[in-house]
């Protein structure tokens, strides 16, 4: 398995040709994509053209010169389709570039295709996509997770070295761990949201999915940073997140304090996940990391909190899809209001409708204080408890998910992603790293969550763990 960073060095020194890398990707895609269905759209022709152009440059200075990447279908690329896997946007063409896309373009990255997702990123299985189901490369009967399931499956199946996703409630990290790759959600405000189709504005963050931690760090170095187009985006100077992620970082484990929430015990956890998580804990202790127990009682409110606030913001964000200026307009509307309703009802999926209705309800004048405002206060409680916890430890360490991926059509329990969602509620950075394969032959992962803007340290932690875990990242699913 070759790291993107090495790949890039080889391409820049013309030791390797970008066009060969791109061709390799499409060969793999032709072989496995029919089984996986990770992509909603592929740009083979343009990608090859672009690769050729880059190969002919005599100076290649971009950080990702000639490197192929997959883009989740809710991120705007000027002139390309952007459906967010919804029927409503079936014919939508992005009129502009997202900030992260601008940065990737100037870094020389090549956009291989648009990856599948849950409709408007609402879901944890990629099954709510209006267009296709994506399979888990490790077992095509199983869900890849979601909402960034297309990105996760594409990377895990080796169709593309890494991909962009978006994470509102675990939507990068959960599918990443279901597919046995690295998934990273930055601190809220580290990466510009401009040009990412909004789900819940106060949780949404664009993030990375890759085979290795250093690849995610490299990608983050390219797309992170200040952007006046996103008011919540931190005005930080450029950071090289790959800096010092080499072997030496294992020693870093000696000074690390990891907190395991005792609430972890309150939940029914897949016994193999529990087992391999304990192995991981032991490995870390052997490296002399300090493992302590922390108490965050508010964890039990996380799924409820998330439901209320996310749905409330969804109800407002999705309101703009009304059939007036773009997207699907029902031919059956009698008057304006009827046309609004029919356009939306005929083009939005059930999960989306359910969330809109629930979100609308909790914001109605008579419910606002009972539900929405109450949830925002409990959110404060959670944040306070997490802040206290970080006085005792550097990172909060848990399994990525409490359950293994399920077969299509089966639902996961509400609490499955509880430790991932907490990061979104508090705006904290979180990264999932593959831990080991279970007897089912499916991967399971662990999750490190740090204080706000500890992202650089978080990468060091994850990369150190990556090195001591015996998860073989060079192993690809047989397809």
């Amino acid at each position, binding site marked *: 398995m070759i790291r993107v960073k090495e790949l890039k060095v080889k391409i820049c020194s013309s030791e390797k040709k970008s066009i060969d890398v791109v061709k390799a990707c499409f060969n793999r895609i032709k072989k496995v994509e029919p089984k996986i269905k990770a992509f909603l759209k592929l740009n083979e022709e343009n990608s090859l053209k672009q690769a050729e152009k880059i190969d002919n440059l005599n100076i290649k200075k971009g950080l990702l010169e000639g490197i192929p990447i997959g883009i989740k279908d809710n991120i705007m690329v000027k002139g390309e389709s952007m459906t967010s896997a919804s029927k409503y946007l079936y014919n939508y063409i992005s009129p502009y570039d997202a900030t992260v896309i601008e940065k990737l373009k100037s870094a020389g990255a090549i956009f291989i295709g648009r990856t599948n997702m849950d409709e408007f990123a609402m879901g944890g299985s990629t099954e709510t996509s209006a267009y296709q189901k994506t399979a888990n490369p490790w077992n095509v009967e199983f869900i890849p997770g979601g909402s960034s399931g297309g990105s996760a499956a594409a990377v895990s199946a080796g169709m593309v070295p890494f991909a962009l996703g978006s994470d509102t409630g675990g939507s990068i990290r959960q599918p990443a761990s279901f597919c046995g790759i690295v998934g990273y959600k930055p601190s809220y405000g580290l990466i510009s949201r401009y040009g990412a189709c909004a789900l819940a504005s*106060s949780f949404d963050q664009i993030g990375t999915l890759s085979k290795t931690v250093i690849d995610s760090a490299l990608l983050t170095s390219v797309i992170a940073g200040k952007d006046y187009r996103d008011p919540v985006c931190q005005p930080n100077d450029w950071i090289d997140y790959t800096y010092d992620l080499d072997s030496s970082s294992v020693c870093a484990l000696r000074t690390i304090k990891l907190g395991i929430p005792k609430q972890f015990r309150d939940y029914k956890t897949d016994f193999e996940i529990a087992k391999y998580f304990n192995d991981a804990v032991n490995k870390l202790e052997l490296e002399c990391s300090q493992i302590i127990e922390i108490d965050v009682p508010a964890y039990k409110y996380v799924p409820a909190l998330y439901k209320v606030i996310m749905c409330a913001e969804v109800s407002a964000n999705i309101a703009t899809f009304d059939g007036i200026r773009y997207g699907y307009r029902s031919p059956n509307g009698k008057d304006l209001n009827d046309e609004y309703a029919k356009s939306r009802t005929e083009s939005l999926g059930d999960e989306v409708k359910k969330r809109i209705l629930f979100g609308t309800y909790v914001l109605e004048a008579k419910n606002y204080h009972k539900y929405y405002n109450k949830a925002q206060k409990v959110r404060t*409680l959670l944040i306070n408890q997490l802040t206290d916890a970080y006085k005792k430890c550097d990172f909060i360490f848990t399994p990525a998910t409490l359950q293994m991926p399920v077969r299509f059509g089966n639902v996961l329990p509400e609490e499955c992603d509880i430790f991932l969602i907490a990061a979104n509620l508090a705006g904290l950075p979180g990264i999932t790293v593959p831990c080991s394969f279970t007897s089912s032959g499916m991967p399971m992962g662990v999750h490190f969550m740090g204080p706000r803007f500890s992202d650089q340290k978080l990468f060091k932690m994850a990369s150190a763990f990556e090195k001591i875990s015996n998860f073989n990242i060079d192993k690809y699913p047989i397809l």
Partner: protein
Amino acid sequence: MLKKELETTSFLARINIKDKEKEKYLADINAMLNYIKILQEPDVKNLKPTTHVTKIRNVWREDIVKPCPRDVIRQMLDMAPEKEKTFYKIKKVISTE
């Protein structure tokens, strides 16, 4: 949530629900409402709601005009389900102006 409330809510949200679907939606939403009851449990009356996790304040730009490129404006209009000249064409609106 009562059937009556579901009807009001679905009008506010401009989502139509067929009569035969209503029971299903009511069941789902009431299950969700039941699930979030737990939020009434903790005492948070002295806590401020968290509307923004960021500590940044007063983010603003100078008053400078940067017109949107003509081709982008054209493309946006071309995506309109219906247009007339450079207007978005829509169903008759009962004037309130």
